[in-house]
């Protein structure tokens, strides 16, 4: 009865709408001319101050598009992943930033220098944000999305939301699980300057959508989205366990 409900969701996120070729301009900023200088400084901080270690870069798909899905414990997280990815990849990445962070003056300036940013209001504009992410992926780019939807105040993982599963399966794009450790110890919420810490960024094997695309022909779409999100959580927990055993 309620099986194979994906069609309605696809209409809702306007999956078949054409995407204008200049759509990405919306998320570009003139401030990005400072990006090389910004990452020059970030490279120094990451190497000598935060002693960032990167694991699993070989797991990143060779070809775009894909979704980068890390845990979120600190305002440093996006920058650490960008550093880990290197300049070529990070310039292809579009980051979904929640409005309460983006709407503050200094964080916004910082984010516009550091990344291609997409502002989202998960309460009011959930579907417009999803549609924007879908368009970016359809143009063959990379999306950075926090599956928890918000920053953890305790350093522990929060429940994962199903939106990331929906975007992935409806676009057919793989998700790369990422576990970030040490940024909470360095700069938790409420702190504005990082303390020296050992930060690690671990990329896991991508979750490909073939199996889930088949499943959504016969299963309730929401259940398939939830399964993908559960699998993502499982993979991030296993990266966490691996990090703790190092």
């Amino acid at each position, binding site marked *: *009865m*309620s099986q194979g*409900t*994906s069609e*309605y*969701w696809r209409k809702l996120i306007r999956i078949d709408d054409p995407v204008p070729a200049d759509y990405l301009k919306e998320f570009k900023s003139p401030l990005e001319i400072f990006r090389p200088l910004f990452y020059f400084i970030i490279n120094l901080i990451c190497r000598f101050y935060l002693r960032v270690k990167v694991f699993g870069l070989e797991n990143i798909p060779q070809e775009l598009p894909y979704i980068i899905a890390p845990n979120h414990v600190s305002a440093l997280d996006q920058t650490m992943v960008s550093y880990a990815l290197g300049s070529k990849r990070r310039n292809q990445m579009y980051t979904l930033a929640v409005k309460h962070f983006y709407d503050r003056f200094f964080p916004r300036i910082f984010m516009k220098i550091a990344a291609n940013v997409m502002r989202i209001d998960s309460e009011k504009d959930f579907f417009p944000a999803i549609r924007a992410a879908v368009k970016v992926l359809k143009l063959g780019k990379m999306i950075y999305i926090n599956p928890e939807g918000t920053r953890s105040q305790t350093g522990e993982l929060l429940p994962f939301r199903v939106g990331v599963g*929906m975007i992935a399966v409806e676009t057919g794009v793989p998700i790369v699980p990422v576990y970030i450790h040490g940024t909470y110890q360095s700069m938790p919420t409420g702190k504005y300057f990082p303390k020296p810490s050992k930060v690690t960024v671990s990329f896991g094997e991508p979750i490909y959508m073939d199996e889930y695309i088949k499943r959504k022909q016969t299963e309730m779409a*929401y259940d398939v*989205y939830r399964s993908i999100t559960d699998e993502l959580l499982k993979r991030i927990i296993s990266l966490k366990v691996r990090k703790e055993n190092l």
Partner: protein
Amino acid sequence: MAEIEQEIRSMVAKIIKRDEKSIEPNANIFTEYGVDSLLGVEILAGLDKKYGLDVPEQKLREIKTLNDIVRIAREQMSKKAG
């Protein structure tokens, strides 16, 4: 019409994974049964699948109870019938 009400009750119960008899018609399904807001979308998707009702997303905000869902389904059925 009572038949439609019963069909929708069964559909909602299946989606939110609860015994259909335990769903109170006026209970807020999100706050009282801990339903994820995107399951509200799945309910609209269920109406689309079962009755061919292309319910606009704005209606999502109106969904709180089983009675709301039945009312929205009836409205859309009347619209569809012209």
